[in-house]
């Protein structure tokens, strides 16, 4: 099991290393230059169906990939969704973040766990994963704080998991 984990981790890390922001911009720039030298044939355009970003899993389940660092009630079970607060609540603009790997594309994403506030705890689908969670001294990565401190009401209701960026590997940014 460990061997399989390590194998896929290594593969995923390689993919992540090749997909950092600089690499992405470089790739875009190269493709734009390249594209301008190639005539756009009608046949080629018709053949290339757009490739959409993908993810998989059940957002009401604690093992959903975006919830890797979460500790709270899943808004998906509370009248909202993984990236939307339930009706009548308010999303706190201040929050903590985690880094989770999308198992479909092998990329690491920065996930913002914005709390929804203003009503008492939703009380269902409690999920505690805590991967990459750090104590209060790293408040940017700490889920021990009641992050509703940034909202009008400090009463916590549930947590979302919003993709706010692609994480880039430290080694490839040097």
């Amino acid at each position, binding site marked *: 099991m460990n061997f399989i984990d390590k194998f896929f981790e290594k593969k995923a890390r390689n993919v992540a290393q090749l997909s950092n922001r600089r690499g992405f911009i470089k790739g875009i720039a190269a493709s734009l230059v390249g594209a301008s030298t190639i005539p756009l044939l009608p046949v080629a355009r018709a053949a290339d169906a757009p490739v959409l970003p993908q993810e998989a899993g059940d957002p009401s389940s604690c093992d959903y990939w975006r919830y890797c660092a979460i500790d709270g009630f899943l808004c998906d079970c509370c009248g909202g969704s993984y990236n939307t607060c339930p009706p009548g609540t308010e999303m706190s603009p201040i929050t903590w973040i985690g880094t989770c790997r999308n198992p479909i594309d092998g990329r690491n994403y920065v996930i913002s766990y914005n709390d929804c506030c203003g009503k008492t705890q939703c009380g269902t689908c409690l999920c505690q994963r805590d991967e990459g969670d750090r*104590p209060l*001294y790293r*408040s940017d990565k700490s889920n021990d*704080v009641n992050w509703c*401190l940034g909202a009008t*009401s*400090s*009463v916590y209701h549930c947590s979302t998991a919003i993709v706010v960026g692609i994480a880039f590997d430290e080694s490839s940014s040097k």
Partner: protein
Amino acid sequence: MKVYTHFKKIFLVCCLFFSMTVFMAAQANQKTVDDVAPRTDLPPLPIEKTGNVSVLPSEFPETWMFVDESSFMSMFGGKMILLDVAESKHADRIKGTADKNLLGNFIQAKIRPEFYIMESFHSRGARGPKTDVLTIYNKTTMATSKEIIWPDTRLQSLPRRHAMALTPDEKFLFVANFSPAASITVVDLDTKEITATIGTPGCVLTFATGNRSVSSLCSNGGMLTTVLNESGKLKSQHRIKAFFDTDKTPIFERPVIINEIAYFPSFTGEVHVFDFSGEVAKYLEHWSLVSEDEKKKNWRPGGLVLNDTDEQGIMYQIMHPDGYDGSQTHGGSQVWLFDMQTKQRLKVIDIPSWAVSIGVTRGEKPLMVITNGELQLDVYNPRTGKLIQTISDFGNHTPLLVHKAY
């Protein structure tokens, strides 16, 4: 088969007869009570005064503890429950309670007959303007003696022992703020007035240091010591260089402190030792709680309030095997006891009902109190490792932290 059916019939008839007998006896008893003739030979019961309220002793017994019922499932109705964890009679366990709203923070003085709760209220339940308030309680009456309306945003997080701290003479109280800008507010406990709010950029929590100082853990892996003058205002601040990597080798922000020496366990079982006896915190050393063999099995510290100490200087640490990044807050299946002077492990106690948090009573023969996986309290004798009793149905929903009571 026939014999069996016959026996079954006899058994049912017997049951019916027994039930009728019990019912008739109860009726007869009731009749007896109702029909008691007035006893004119006995004096009537004295007329009692209304408005009686119990008062607690000036010094609490060693087996009393303050249970932080955090009310995590609603945030309203949190409270501190003063509980005798050695009492076997259910009705005699609770000694008193004090409300603690919206994940309030708690600390008790040892010299002053007081305890302090830092809490928050919205004017209309979950909405309306918010007020943070420091509520000062008299420990014997459990009544509020003063409220100080808070000018800053106090730290609101899962319960912990170091959101507030007292100077050794209990002249000053330090309170952690987090907005998320971090600061510390100082209260003069003689005058019950705020003397200062001091910024601690990037550094959080309150660890009492020396006579007039407080230290905080920083985001760069270092420490910051804030020194007060005798008026309770800022005298100086000192940064202690980083001693761990907050990403790669994180520590728990929950140390045990024994005779002003603080032991901060890391996620993987390294313990970092600080001397808090001087004016400025001083890093001493680090050593491992786990052997090489145990490291291979990924034995790690873990839990919410994952450690405590007794008055003999023994550290009680919740541990779990097969640890990973993410398991650090999940609790453990064992408690390991360490002599922190000799750095030797003294005992391993299995916790079959899982340990989320731990607290230890005062005294020479302390009791170990575990918040178990069912969010009840298991009381152990740490000398034998035996479970004494499980305490539930005392208003516990999420009793996440247990404090010594003085």
